[in-house]
Every structure is written in C-alpha cells, then in structure tokens.
C-alpha cells in the first residue's frame, strides 16, 4: 500500500462512514420492528427518540460519503505519477481490478445517499413520521452497499503498489480495445449526439409535464437517471474531445485537472446533483396520498423537479458552449 495522506484520509472516512451507518442500520432495524405510533409506551417513546439518533448519524455519514467520492477521484488522480504509463486517474484506477468497481460503488452509494436525504427531509415535514418505514427500509439497503464499497476500496487501496505498469488513459480509452471504458469511447459521436439531445429534450418535456399537469413523476425520475448515464457516455464519446481540443482524447478524468481549469467539478457536480433531485421526485411520488404530507410533498416535488431541470440545463449549457466555441470541429 502507498502511505499517501490522501489514502489514509479515504480509509479513515470509509471506516467512519461504515461505523456510523452500521450503528444507524442496527437502530433502524429496531425501529422498523418495534414501531407503533398508536402506542404511548416507554419503548415507543424511546424509539421515537432514537429516530433522531439515526437521522443524525445517517445525515453525517452520507455527507461524508458524497465528499469522499470527489476525494477518491482526486486521490487517484494525484497518484498517477507513481504508476508507469498512467497519465491521470484513469490509469491509477486501472492499476488493479478493484479501482473501477470502487468508483462505481461510490457513485451508486452517493445517488442512494442523496435519495435517502430527500426522503428524510420529506419525512420531517409531516408530524406523524409518515415515511418512517420506507426510509428505514432504504437504509437497510444502503448499509450493505456502503460496507461492500468500503471493502472494495480497501482492496483497491491496499493493493496499490507504486511502479505497477498500467495502461495510460490514452490507450485505455482509445479505439479498438475491449472493456467497458473502451466501449464508451467507441460509441460514435454520430449516434451519441442525437441520443444526447433527444434525452435532454425528453427530460425537459417530462419536466414541463410534471410541473404543469403534476403527472409523470416516475417517468421524470427514470429520464433523469437516463440523462446521467447518457451524459457520461456522451462526455466520453464527444464532449471531452471539444474540451481537450484533441480528436483522440476520451478520458473523463482529465477534466478534473488544473490544465482544464477544474471544469470537471461543475460538470460532474451538476450531473450528480441533477440526477439525485430527479430521482427524489419519483421516489416521493407514491407517498403523495399520505394525509400529513398532502400539502408539503407536491411543493417539495416541484422544487426538486426545478432543481433537476436547472442543473441539467446548466450542464448542457456548459458543454454546449464548449462544443460551439472549441476550435476543434468533428
């Protein structure tokens, strides 16, 4: 293992997050089992008090989790100098087979974490703990995922050895190679461009429908998720080329480097934020019938939908402007 301060910070963070979430999951499990709002017993009062503990633990853990996604990518990026052939995070992550799975697990837990925080926020709007069961059920899904991610990250970071020969981002994302990343680069811009703009249009249309007629929340959520995936594929397929002004450089991580003005942070930040807000809209929609949330929930959904649309718009505006202003023409 490389004793880099960033690696130590990551290990510490995942250890803490796992600890907090495991504790919260155990409390959540007890709450799910013994919850009875009608009862005024001591046990129920104690459980109600414990909901505060769970939400404090989880809210803190999830904020750490979201921050650690960026720390992870940045650490992988700063480690690239220690691997022959690695030119950015793409090479460091390929240094052993656990790099990319860790990144994907981190992304998945961040999305779920965001959704959980939205559910929690909605739950606090009603007086009678209206979402307590779905909230803790989701928590019980989240806990094993985070533990798995901690394990993957440990395997990845502990297995890193300086000087391991790895493929650099140029060859990994180059044409004519097998593997997930190579396939993304292989998607021709001719196909990806219309797909991206159609998905964007559909998302906007679904948003308008949702905000006007208050219908299609689930479809909107699915489209938000689709927009995230299509956008990442499009970034690798053609948006990156315009930003790097190089027709062969497909790497999605170099965007985060100083050379490109850290443009990757707003790009991925808006994408991730938009997807979380969009997913939240659909996740909340089955609970609109709850009496105590009848007033607050539609308002919250509208706010989330607006955030998702605005963030998607900012993302598209950023990459679109780059595409127009870039001296590179495909």
């Amino acid at each position: 293992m490389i004793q880099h301060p960033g690696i130590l910070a990551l290990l510490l963070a995942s250890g803490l997050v796992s600890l907090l979430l495991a504790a919260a999951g155990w409390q959540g499990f007890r709450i799910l089992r013994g919850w009875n709002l009608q009862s005024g017993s001591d046990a129920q009062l104690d459980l109600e008090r414990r909901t505060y503990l769970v939400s404090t633990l989880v809210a803190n853990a999830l904020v750490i989790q979201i921050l650690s996604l960026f720390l992870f990518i940045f650490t992988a990026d700063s480690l690239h100098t220690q691997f022959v052939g690695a030119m950015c995070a793409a090479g460091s992550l390929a240094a052993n087979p656990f790099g990319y799975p860790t990144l994907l697990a981190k992304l998945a837990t961040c999305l779920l974490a965001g959704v959980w925080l939205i559910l929690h926020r909605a739950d606090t709007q009603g007086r009678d703990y209206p979402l307590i069961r779905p909230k803790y059920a989701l928590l019980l899904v989240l806990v094993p995922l985070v533990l798995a991610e901690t394990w993957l990250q440990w395997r990845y970071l502990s297995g890193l050895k300086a000087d391991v020969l790895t493929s650099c981002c140029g060859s990994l994302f180059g044409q004519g190679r097998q593997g997930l990343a190579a396939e993304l680069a292989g998607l021709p811009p001719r196909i990806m461009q219309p797909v991206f703009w159609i998905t964007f249009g559909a998302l906007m249309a679904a948003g308008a429908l949702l905000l006007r007629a208050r219908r299609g929340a689930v479809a909107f959520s699915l489209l938000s998720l689709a927009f995230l995936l299509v956008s990442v594929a499009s970034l690798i397929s053609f948006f990156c080329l315009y930003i790097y002004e190089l027709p062969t450089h497909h790497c999605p991580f170099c965007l985060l480097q100083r050379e490109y003005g850290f443009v990757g942070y707003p790009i991925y930040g808006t994408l991730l934020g938009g997807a979380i807000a969009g997913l939240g809209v659909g996740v909340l929609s089955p609970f609109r019938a709850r009496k105590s949330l009848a007033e607050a929930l539609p308002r919250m959904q509208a706010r989330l939908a607006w955030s998702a649309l605005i963030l998607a718009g900012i993302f598209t505006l950023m990459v679109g402007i780059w595409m127009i202003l870039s001296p590179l023409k495909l």
Partner: protein
Amino acid sequence: MRPPVQRYRNILDFALSSLLRRKGRNLALICVYTLVVFVLASLVFFVQALKREARELLVHAPDMVVQRMVAGRHDPMPAAQAEAIRAIRGVEEVQPRLWGYYYDPVYGGNLTLMATSDTALAADSVWIGQGVARTMRVQEGDMISLRGYAGLPTLFTVQKVLPEASELVSSDLILMSPRDVRSLFNLPEGLATDLAVTAGNPRELPTIAAKIVERFPDTRPILKSEILRTYEAIFDWRGGLMVVVFASAVLSFIIFAWDKATGLSAEERKEIGILKSIGWESADVLLLKFWEGAVVSLTAFLGGVLLAYAHVFFFSATLFEHALKGWSVLFPRYRLVPALDGYQLTVLFFLTVLPYTAATLVPIWRAATVDPDAAMRS
C-alpha cells in the same frame, strides 16, 4: 429575510453566545484541536512543497541517464559508447558526464564535484555553491585545497560563487574543468561517469531505453520520470508515516473531545431542559449543538492551517525538517515556495474534522433528547 434563513441565523447566534458563556472550557478544546490540525497541516504542506521542489528541480535534469554496471555496482563507462547510443533512432543528444563525490574530512561534509565544459571557467579554478562557501568560509578569489586520489592536496582558486537562486541544486556543488576532475580522481581519458541522453520526443524514451539495454546489456538507463516517481513515493511515504505516528495524537484528541461532549454540566442540562420546555424541539437542540461543533471545528481548523502555513513557509518547518528532508551536514538554505491547494485542505479536513464530528454525534444526541422535566430536576 426568509424564515428558514432567519431561523438558522438565530440558532447560530444562540450557539455563539452559549459558547462564549463557557469560555474557559471551549477555549481549552479549541487550543488542543488547533494544535492537532497544526501538526497534521504542517506535515501535509511540507511534504507537498518538497514534492513540488523536486518536480521543479528535475525539469532541467536530462531525460535519461545511462550508467554502466560492473558486478552490480556503478562503474565509469567508455565515452565511445556515446556514439553508438547517438545512432539509435529518436536520440537527439548524448552528453558524457564527468562527476563524483568528494568527502571533506575537515568540514565533515560530502561535496559533489562535476566537470563543466563552460569555457569561462579557467584551469585550476573552481565555481562553488553557496553551501560550500558557507561551510569552508571562503569567497571569490580565495583558495581552497582538495585532496587528490594520491592523498596530495591540490589548490584551486574560487573564481565564482554560484548564485543563491540555484542553491537547492548547487549548495554542495563544485564545478571544475574536465581535465582537473580527471587528474583529481585519476580518471583515465575516454571514460565518463555516465551519459546524459536527450530524446526528441519524450514518449520514445522507454523504447530508446529498451534498445540501449539490448545493445549494451551491462548498462542501466534511468529515466527522469522514474526518478520523479521515486521522489514522490518517498515523500508520500515519509508524510504518510508521520501521519500514522501522529494518529495516536489524533486518537487521544478524539477521546478528549468525546469526554468533553459527554460530560454535560448540570448547568448545561438545565439549559437544554428550559429550551425544550419553552418549545424547542429535539431537532432544534440538535441543530444548536451542530452549530456549536461547527464553530469550534472551523475556528480550530482555520487557526491550525494558518499557523501551519506560517510554520512551513516562513520558518521552513523547523519542527520536522530533519525527519522529512533527510540528514546531511551541508544543508541547502532555502525557503519553500508557498503552495496550497484545495486537495490538501480536503485531506486535512478529512483527517481532523471528520473524526471529531463522528465522536461527538452520540453525546450530542443524548443531550438533545433528554426529557425537559428530568433535565431541570437533576
């Protein structure tokens, strides 16, 4: 102002005033916290600055150095091999270099002697680095004496002291003409210490290195990128090692913080009881405690980072210089170039504020959910 913002502001106001009410106790906490941040921040900044220096130093190093190995040891190599290497496609220039180390028994330091082809340097004269001039207490025009291979002292005139700006590289350096280096070390003509190879396209270096090893199996090419990688690995390793050593300090601080947060004074319990009985919810009290924690953490974090910045960049990290830089008699005197980036601050934040926050969560919850009547009665 919008009501939620107003609410946060009021709670923050209240948090500040309640922190001020218990000045002594919170000041002790902030001091210890600041100290922990200061130690870790100094380390992280210092390691980062050293890595940066190494990177900038090596910008002017040759792309590749080729050494000859005899029985696993570095040996002078025939200068004629330079011609053969120059013929390899992609090689732009091959420069035979002549250098060595000289141990000075009087001052107890190791000097680096190097030949320069600069014609401004007269025979029997030397150019010396600032560190050499300082240690030997000589200046331009003075004479220095170096013992040759046979043990006989040779006198050289100091023609120039190299400028201070280059001190990090040239502190222990003595430059002399190739003829003087050969006679001092008894190096025969036709032998060089090593070869410096420059390639037109740096991407071809690994291929060129492979070809050199194939043609001359007794040589060892060392790429600049390899040196750089090794430096980074060593500095990271040293920094990480120190962080691990200081982990015990962080751990004791966490226990201290946990203890502080758990041991609510009777007065504090009463206060929370009163707040709750006048209509504050548990969530509000949690928020209040969260703000208190945030104020303490941010104050300590900022204070620690600023102190560390001053320590590293104004006072050259006097406290851990020797642990991190290595040990030598002839240390270059230099001031590190201030370099700070968001990444280091984030790492520091993760290493200090996160454990503190995690340790205080449960005590805070316990305080916030206490029953008002029980709290006031106790």
